[in-house]
């Protein structure tokens, strides 16, 4: 691999890592901070992508679709928390797995009934549709760089929310000792409602902005679900910075695994996970 190729592959790795972070960030909140094992997280990603497809078909514009889609996703999250998840906080993880696995099946079937099983595409917004020339044969789409920038901004925003604001403090306190927080007169149920809705919104948002580059197809959430869990676990459960670093590590492992050891590329990500967990059993940044 010459130096230019190496630089471009590094860009690929960072860009893929940031996209993975965007999906995993919602899971960091729901799994990491609230302690709910949410297997349906990938479904929220898929729902976001299909929302983008349906809303762009109606409005013809991804930005309008985002404006409409984000509140819809938040509403869905709040509704699910109120109807289902709220009853599971004090139950064990196995029951959470059962519920959220069931939700995967329900969402897939609803998607199939409402929008069919065809593959769909969403056009890249016109102002970001240009490409930057990297070599005489290769260009880089501007939209991918925009996604990366959005991911970095979101990472910073999440960090500030959780570590620098009053509500962030309540969330962290609730994770640490739920009963004590309630005893101090804080309505923990309302905080969890907000956090869960935020987590669902982040996953759906990831699906929406990734739709133009990833296409929209049945089962698209299942792939990102597993990688998201890998990222949350090796990043250190509950740590936003950890998730960001872990997502980049996975981005590098996947990209360079495919290039350097193509026959074992499928293993690369999990070998890295095993290595990190041997080195730091509680993840890179334990919270």
């Amino acid at each position: 691999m010459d130096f230019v190729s190496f630089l471009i592959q590094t860009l690929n790795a960072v860009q893929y890592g940031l996209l993975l972070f965007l999906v995993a960030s919602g899971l960091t909140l729901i799994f990491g901070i609230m302690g709910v094992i949410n297997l349906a997280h990938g479904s929220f990603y898929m729902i976001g992508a299909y929302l983008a497809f349906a809303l762009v078909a109606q409005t013809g514009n991804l930005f309008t679709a985002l404006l409409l889609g984000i509140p819809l996703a938040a509403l869905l999250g709040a509704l699910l928390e109120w109807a289902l998840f709220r009853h599971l906080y004090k139950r064990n993880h196995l029951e959470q797995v059962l519920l959220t696995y069931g939700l995967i099946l329900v969402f897939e079937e609803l998607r199939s009934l409402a929008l069919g099983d065809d593959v769909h595409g969403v056009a890249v917004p016109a102002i970001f549709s240009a490409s930057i020339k990297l070599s005489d044969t290769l260009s880089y789409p501007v939209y991918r760089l925009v996604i990366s920038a959005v991911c970095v901004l979101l990472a910073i925003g999440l960090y500030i929310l959780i570590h620098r604001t009053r509500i962030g403090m309540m969330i962290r306190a609730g994770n640490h000792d739920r009963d004590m927080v309630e005893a101090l007169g804080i309505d923990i149920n309302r905080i969890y409602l907000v956090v869960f809705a935020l987590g669902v919104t982040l996953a759906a948002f990831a699906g929406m902005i990734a739709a133009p580059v990833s296409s929209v197809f049945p089962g698209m959430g299942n792939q990102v679900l597993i990688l998201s869990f890998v990222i949350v676990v090796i990043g250190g459960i509950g740590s936003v910075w950890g998730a960001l670093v872990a997502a980049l590590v996975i981005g590098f492992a996947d990209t360079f695994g495919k290039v350097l050891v193509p026959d074992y590329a499928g293993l690369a990500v999990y070998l890295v996970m095993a290595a990190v967990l041997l080195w730091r059993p509680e993840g890179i940044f334990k919270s």
Partner: protein
Amino acid sequence: MNSYSPKITSPGSIWTRTATVATALACAALLPLGNAQAQSGKIKIGLMLPYTGTYAALGNAVTNGFKLYVEESGGKLGGRDIEYFVVDDESDPAKATENTNKLVKRDQVDVLVGTVHSGVAMGMAKVARENNTLFVVPNAGADELTGPLCAPNIFRTSFSNWQSAYAMGPVVYEKRARKVVTLTWKYAAGKQMTDAFAEAFEKAGGKVVKEMTLPFPNVEFQPFLTEIAALKPDAVFVFFAGGGAAKFVKDYGAAGLRASIPLYAPGFLTDGTLEAMGDAGQGLLTTLHYADGLTNAKDQAFRAGYAKAYKAAPDVYAVQGYDAAQLLATGLSAVKGDVSKRAELVKAMEAARIDSPRGAFTLSKAHNPVQDIYLRKAEGKENKVVSVVSKALADPARGCKM
């Protein structure tokens, strides 16, 4: 525990019981034979296809095509009424044996039809071979089904992976490409496709300089696009289908590679995905045994009939289902619906010349279609026929002992 008093069983009673069970099993084994001999009833057709999940649309198209032919024939095949037994195989190879047994053992179907997923189809083939059930494959392209797994009772009306990729070899060579890179998912179908392409392309005089794979169903292609740009081959040959196909073609276009390095693939790349690809898919050249814009009368009649029955345009999967029913009809007519005359039935099916919407085809010794392969060009939402690139292409049926 009250009603059950444990006691030591004597060896004698074990033998008695074993004998009783064995007798019961032997009687049960005779049952299907008894049913098959009664020819007055309906012919039982087991449709085992995906009706949920990623391949649901394909399973429905196959079913629609099959039923359309039966309807056109007055609801009968070989003069007998049809009764369908339907199982959703969920494209899950782990459930293939159990699901097939439901149809073969419980429902005792006369004919088994399925499926889309190659792994499931191979499970079905094993059960069909063990029970000698007549089995027609209306899609799954695994070379094995008409290769090592071939049998007198197993037929295919679709294609072998080898066929759809092999035909592309000479095409790419004629487009003056000498060095080619291949890329596909690391699984059986991908390997069979890229190997068949390499076989034909290198026979023509070209060279596959690099075979790249990524884990199935991973769709992060960027590292490979970077490698392709660095290698600068004359052309790229890929096998992808469904969502992965749409994403790959868009990524390939967005990376600016379409302008300098032409992309070729078996037709699965652009079937049902052109809308999702948008502009990036336009002009793509692919090979397959069916195309839009064929001029034969059968295709036009089929398309009109399908549109009338289902208010939708047919695709290659509907054609394959339609032809599965045609092939069965030929066999059943020859024996006047008497499925117990298996040898004659199979002989008639082997000799059949199917008037398919794709153009007429016959069957090879291994029971795979000997068919024309078309070069198609993506225009709008259609894969328009350009030419016939391989006339009456027969799968080599490697490993078939029949």
